[in-house]
Structures are given as C-alpha cells and as structure tokens.
C-alpha cells in the first residue's frame, strides 16, 4: 500500500504583504490548512487522489485569500474570469475550462467534463451554459469580486506596463 500524500499551493507571489491587510498571511495559512484537511480526510479514508485534489481545490476556490474562485483578481474590465483543470493519472483523463464568469466551482465543472465529456476543454460563456445545464451552481460575477482586488486592479492600471503580473500570486 502506498503512503498517501497531498501537496497544495495558493499561488507564487513576488511581494511581501502585497495585500493591504496585516491579517492576510494568518488567514492564508489557515486557508491552506483547511484545504489540507479536506484532501487528507479523503486520502486517510482510502479515497481517491482525484476526490482529494478536487476537495482541496474547492476549499481554496471559496477562500477569498487566494486568486481562484471567490477572491480572484479582476480583468482590466473589472470582472472575474476563471480557469481550471483536473487530471487523473490512472488513465490520463482530463477536464479543463477557461473564461468562466458565473460557475461558482470551476474545478467541479472541469471534473464533470473529465468524467462525462463530451470534450476535454471548454471556454467562455458557453462553458457556463454547459455548467448550468449540468446543474452546477451559477452565481452573479459579483459573487467573486472583493474590494481588495478592486484596489489591486486600480494599482495595476495606474502602473500600466510596469505592473508585475504575478505580484499578487
């Protein structure tokens, strides 16, 4: 029997305290632990690696500390566009989505594609429509938008071409 293991990331950043909130780091560490809890509980119970990575990713998508799902960065137009992918090492099945605006759980839509197809990769509002038909929760785009990300967008637009694209992780 193999020793189970889960590893997660919440983004690579280039600035200490790029966020204007001194509690951000403590909240982010708590979010990382919550994601590890979700994945480890499945693996410790003999569950699959696919279930574990989807569960951990869902915790991080819902956590406003991280640039995914709720709390994502904003496009230059001030909206959130979401991308996600999931892949199963057993048979290299995969699902991927890009440019979502109303699907609350991007990684869950990617998994639905991986398991039921008909395609590997869907993009844009048509992908949101596919999710809605599949019964995957839809929300208004403002569900994903946080004031701190609006501030960062204004900062990035003011910096123009000098903005560091991965400053916020």
């Amino acid at each position, binding site marked *: 029997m193999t020793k189970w293991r889960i*590893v997660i*990331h*919440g*983004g690579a950043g280039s600035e200490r305290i790029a966020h204007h909130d001194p509690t951000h780091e403590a909240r982010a560490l708590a979010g990382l632990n919550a994601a590890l809890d979700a994945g480890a509980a499945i693996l410790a119970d003999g569950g699959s*690696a696919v279930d574990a990575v989807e569960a951990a990713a869902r915790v991080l998508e819902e956590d406003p500390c991280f640039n995914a799902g709720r709390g994502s960065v904003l496009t230059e137009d001030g909206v959130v*566009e979401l991308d996600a*992918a999931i892949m199963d*090492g057993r048979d290299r099945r995969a699902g991927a989505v890009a440019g979502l605006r109303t699907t609350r759980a991007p990684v869950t839509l990617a998994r639905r594609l991986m398991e039921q197809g008909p395609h590997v990769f869907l993009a844009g509002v048509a992908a949101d429509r596919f999710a809605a038909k599949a019964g995957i929760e839809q929300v208004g785009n403002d569900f994903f938008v946080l004031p701190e990300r609006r501030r960062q967008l204004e900062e990035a637009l003011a910096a123009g071409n000098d903005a560091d694209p991965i400053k916020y992780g």
Partner: protein
Amino acid sequence: TIGAVAVDTHGHVAAATSTGGITAKRWGRIGDSPLIGAGTYADDRAAAVSATGSGEYFIRAVAAHELAARMRLGGETLQQALDGVLADLEGIGGKGGLIAVAPDGEAAWGFTTPAMYRGMASADDRCVAIYAED
C-alpha cells in the same frame, strides 16, 4: 492561482489547478493553469503536477508535462525533474512555482519567486508556509 496534487493509497496520482489569471488581464488572455501539460498534468507512470507563476512561460515550456517526461524518459527523481523544469523556465525568462507528487508517495515543491503559498500533508506530517525563508 491555486493547485493540489495527491497520491492515494492505491498509488494513483491526480492534479487540479484553478485561477483568476492575472490582475488587469485583457483580450481574453488565458494562462497555463487550464492547459493540460502546461499548468496541470497527472500520469501514474511519472507524477502529478500543478504550476503557478508567469503563465506564458509555463505554456511555452510545457512545464507540467516536461516534469513528468524527465522522470518517465530521463530517469530523473521527482525533485530533480521539478528543479530542472524551474531552471529551464528561468532560462527563458519565466518565474513561479511547481508542486508535484509521484505514485511511490514522493512529494516535491520549488519556486523562483520570493513567496509561494504552499502546504503538504501525509499520515505522518504536515506543514504550511508562504515565504522562501519560512
């Protein structure tokens, strides 16, 4: 960007990545995260990988698949392959981080930015960290 890689008690691996992209993104730009083989890849013959960083470079380097290929075809260990891909990325001007697990239960991470939110857990241990010096 967030990501998770896992190996279960049956030795199967999986990877997931999810992102909002980059701040002030325009023109429908899509980065590496949803591109299978660039920001997300899983193959029981080698490893499961999730990436974060300057997406255009991870796309060009086909980073996640490259890490698995270095192991499967080049015989590198998980950490050697991960470090090699990060060095390759730096060579073309990219920066960021990778997390990976192998079917034998090995796990690895690495990053070329000052920080990467990261965590690791198994039946015996657990850690979370943000900065390189943490």
